């Protein structure tokens, strides 16, 4: 019975099922993992929150993040205060936040996230970047700053870098 079940696993032709290979007592083995096991073993997604008051820019960010299988958008907000509420409620891994927003701006909101002790890392975005703004962002406690003009090429890269604990100032 055991021999039969092993043979059936080895003969699986479903390409979606990942293959595990190795050796046991110098004998090579090759196993196709069932999908439910591979999904359980898969790397957890990076949980991202978005804070941006410009509706069309939110569309851009959401669309961009939807292209990455490693990222999951857990929350969207229109201002810094809503972003803080989101961080308290959902503890995202990364908060992508505009600097210029009504009610509470991105720099002030970053300081509040840091002082709350949340593990969420902040990536700021702005139309205006450069050395001065990067220094402001870093002083507030942000892990990175990306120009809005460059999000298509840099945002996912920045999120992954920040999630690994690195800083990203473009």
């Amino acid at each position, binding site marked *: 019975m055991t021999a039969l079940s092993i043979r059936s696993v080895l003969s699986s032709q479903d390409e979606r099922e990942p293959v595990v290979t190795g050796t046991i007592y110098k004998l090579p083995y090759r196993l196709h993992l069932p999908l439910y096991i591979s999904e359980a073993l898969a790397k957890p997604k990076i949980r991202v929150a978005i804070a941006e008051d410009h*509706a*069309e*820019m939110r*569309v*851009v960010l*959401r*669309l*961009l993040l*939807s*292209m990455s299988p490693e990222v999951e958008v857990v929350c969207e907000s229109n201002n810094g205060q809503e972003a803080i509420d989101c961080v308290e409620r959902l503890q995202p891994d990364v908060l992508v936040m505009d600097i210029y927003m009504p009610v509470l701006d991105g720099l002030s909101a970053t300081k509040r996230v840091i002082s709350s002790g949340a593990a969420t890392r902040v990536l700021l975005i702005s139309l205006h970047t450069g050395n001065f703004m990067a220094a402001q962002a870093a002083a507030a406690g942000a892990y990175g700053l990306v120009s*809005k*003009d460059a*999000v*298509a*090429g840099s945002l996912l890269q920045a999120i992954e870098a920040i999630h690994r604990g690195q800083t990203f100032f473009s």
Partner: protein
Amino acid sequence: MTETGRIRILIADDFKVLRDVIRLYLERVEDMEVVDEVPDLDDALERTRSLQPDVIVLNDYLPPVDSAHAAALFRKLEIPAALLAISMSAEPDLIRRSFRHGINGFMLKEEIDECLVEAIRSIHRGERYLSPRAQEAYDGTQH
């Protein structure tokens, strides 16, 4: 269509970051190819003449005109490309006028992830396309 069978697409929108991301998004679709992206009507007309795209994805406001005026102009110039308008707000009057003047499809930018590929394929086949939320907004004014 190219010899490879891909649908050739021109993106026309005054918001550059959105053009960039739509381009990235469509480049991942096997049967589609973005031939260029432009910010306004003049550039759209010029690139349409030189590149002859199958489909033009255009903002509902393509400076200096809205999608209804743009469609009227494209049709007057006998440009055969299928036209898909994308919009932040499903304004029923603009939807109605755009279709009347030659737009083939209308959808919301909020729906790009769910609907853009289907919309492009649909209008490229010669069908009319109205996205679910644009349809909802349009129906809401007909009662």
